[in-house]
Structures are given as structure tokens and as C-alpha cells.
């Protein structure tokens, strides 16, 4: 059986090198150890590892997981190694949502980490057993929140959805008015009505709601359909 090939992305120099050495001793083929995201991306392109082990505290670490950086087919399997003293359920949820294939706290030592790398390389999902329940619960809560947000979105009229899309694009009242050939006062009234229907207190909250629940694409499709 071939040993899994790995790139490590960790901003802490001494720990990064120690981790690479320790994993090599466990039979893992460590191809590179990168100190930051840019270096990690270069190493991923250069070495095409089976697994990327990433420390989530590294600045921009979760960007390495976002599918837009690399498509799921092209990118390596990703294991998040959270060595924070108190690894949190929220961090795990963030990592899984960002596209990680596994998450480990390192409590199992180097042997445990090597096992996690092998499991990830073999296509399995790794989650600390004691964190599985809270993770599933967090995902369920997020689905419910998204569903509620979607229902609120559906209460908007086609014109209000169009307005919301422009708000999400960062346009102010005057820009919206110009774009839709209406007065600034009318645009302001539309925006206030949208905020009230969405049950949010500001334009920023409305934009956050749309982005957090991935509603922008849906909004665009609905607006296009109405326009077409």
C-alpha cells in the first residue's frame, strides 16, 4: 500500500517542521510544509498531494478550503488540524462548511494524526467522535435558519427582490433609483419595506442574511426570470 502524500500548511515554524518530521516517521510522505496560504497554494500546484493538512489559525487558512480556490475534483482531500487548547464545535462546523473532509484536534498524538491522514486519503470523513453530535446539531440549526431566511425572501415582491439584489451589490438609494428609473425617495421606501419583510435592522444585515444563506444566486435567478 502506498503511503499518503501530504502538504502541511501551518504558520508556526517550529511546530510545522516538527509535525512534518513526526509524520514522516509514521510513514506519511510529506511533500512540503508551507508557512502561509500563498506558499501552500504553490506547493499544491507543484506537488499535487493526496492530502492537505491545514492549521485553521493560520491567517486565511479557510480560503484554502473554499471550493472556488480549487474545484473539489482538482483539490486534495483536506484535513483540518486544530491544535487550539479548546477546539470548539463552532470551529469544526466552520471547517466542514468551508469544505474540509476531516477535522482532528491532535489529541490522539502523532499516531492519531497519521491515522486521520490515512483515513482522509482513503476517502473517509474524519470527525472527533465526541464532537459529532454538536456538529450535526449545528448543521441542522443552520439548515433551519436558511429555510426561514428563504421563506422571508419568498415574501418579497419581484420588485423588492430586484431592490435587494442591488442592495447586496452595494448600491445606495441614489444608485438604485438611477438603475431602476425611479426617484430616490421611492428607492428608499422600497429598501425600508425589504428590510422590514426580512426582519433585519439595516442594509448590512440584509446583505449578510443573503450571503450567509447562499441566497444571492437564487435571488438572481428569480429576478432574471421576472425580467425575461
Amino acid at each position: 500500500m502506498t503511503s499518503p502524500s501530504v502538504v502541511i500548511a501551518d504558520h508556526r515554524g517550529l511546530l510545522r517542521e516538527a509535525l512534518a518530521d513526526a509524520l514522516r516517521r509514521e510513514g506519511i510522505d510529506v511533500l512540503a510544509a508551507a508557512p502561509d496560504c500563498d506558499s501552500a497554494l504553490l506547493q499544491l500546484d507543484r506537488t499535487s498531494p493526496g492530502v492537505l493538512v491545514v492549521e485553521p489559525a493560520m491567517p486565511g487558512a479557510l480560503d484554502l478550503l473554499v471550493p472556488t480556490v480549487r474545484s473539489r475534483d482538482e483539490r486534495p482531500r483536506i484535513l483540518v488540524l486544530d491544535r487550539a487548547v479548546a477546539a470548539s464545535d463552532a470551529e469544526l462546523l466552520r471547517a466542514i462548511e468551508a469544505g474540509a473532509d476531516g477535522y482532528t484536534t491532535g489529541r490522539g498524538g502523532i499516531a492519531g494524526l497519521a491515522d486521520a491522514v490515512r483515513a482522509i486519503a482513503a476517502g473517509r470523513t474524519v470527525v472527533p467522535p465526541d464532537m459529532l453530535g454538536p456538529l450535526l446539531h449545528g448543521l441542522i440549526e443552520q439548515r433551519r435558519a436558511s429555510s426561514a431566511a428563504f421563506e422571508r425572501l419568498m415574501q418579497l415582491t419581484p420588485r423588492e427582490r430586484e431592490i435587494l439584489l442591488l442592495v447586496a451589490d452595494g448600491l445606495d438609494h441614489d444608485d438604485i433609483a438611477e438603475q431602476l428609473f425611479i426617484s430616490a425617495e421611492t428607492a428608499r421606501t422600497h429598501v425600508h419595506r425589504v428590510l422590514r419583510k426580512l426582519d433585519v435592522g439595516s442594509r448590512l444585515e440584509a446583505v449578510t442574511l443573503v450571503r450567509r444563506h447562499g441566497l444571492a444566486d437564487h435571488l438572481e435567478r428569480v429576478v432574471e426570470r421576472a425580467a425575461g
Partner: protein
Amino acid sequence: MTTFSTDARPRRRDDVLVAIRDDRTELTTAAGELHVLNPTAHALWQLCDGLTTPSEMAAAVCDVFDVHVEIALRDVAAGLGALVRDGLVEVPK
């Protein structure tokens, strides 16, 4: 075999004693039977809050694990069935 409607809302029984020992959860039923749950069963037991349906549980399982929703639903139902049979979970009518 216990069967579940996908919109049932199973909940942990109030008369079960819970003890955490050495990273494992021990559950003792009202009848005095001791159960030590494996991690998956423990996660499922944690989700039995009287609000969450088997469908929601299965959807979350699919979010984490690369598994077809039908298989997740079947496994969730089987796991819940075992928890009900063991007297750890009840399904309000």
C-alpha cells in the same frame, strides 16, 4: 422493528441517568440497565431533543459524510430504533 415517520420528533427519556466517565457516556435506564453508546449512537442520542426529525438528522449526516440520503435515512431510523428499544429515547405520539 421500530419504524419512524420522517417527521417524528424523538426525544431523550427524562428517566435515564447520564454519567460521563473517561470520555465515554454511560446511560442507565429506569429499569437499571446500563448502556454505553458508540460515538454514532451517542451523536444520534444527542440529537433527540423532541424537535429534530429523522429527516433533518439524515440530511445533516449527508452534509458531513459522503452518503446517499436514502442510506442515511435508513441508518438513522435503525439507530433510533435501537435507542427506543433500549429505553433511552421515546417518540411522542
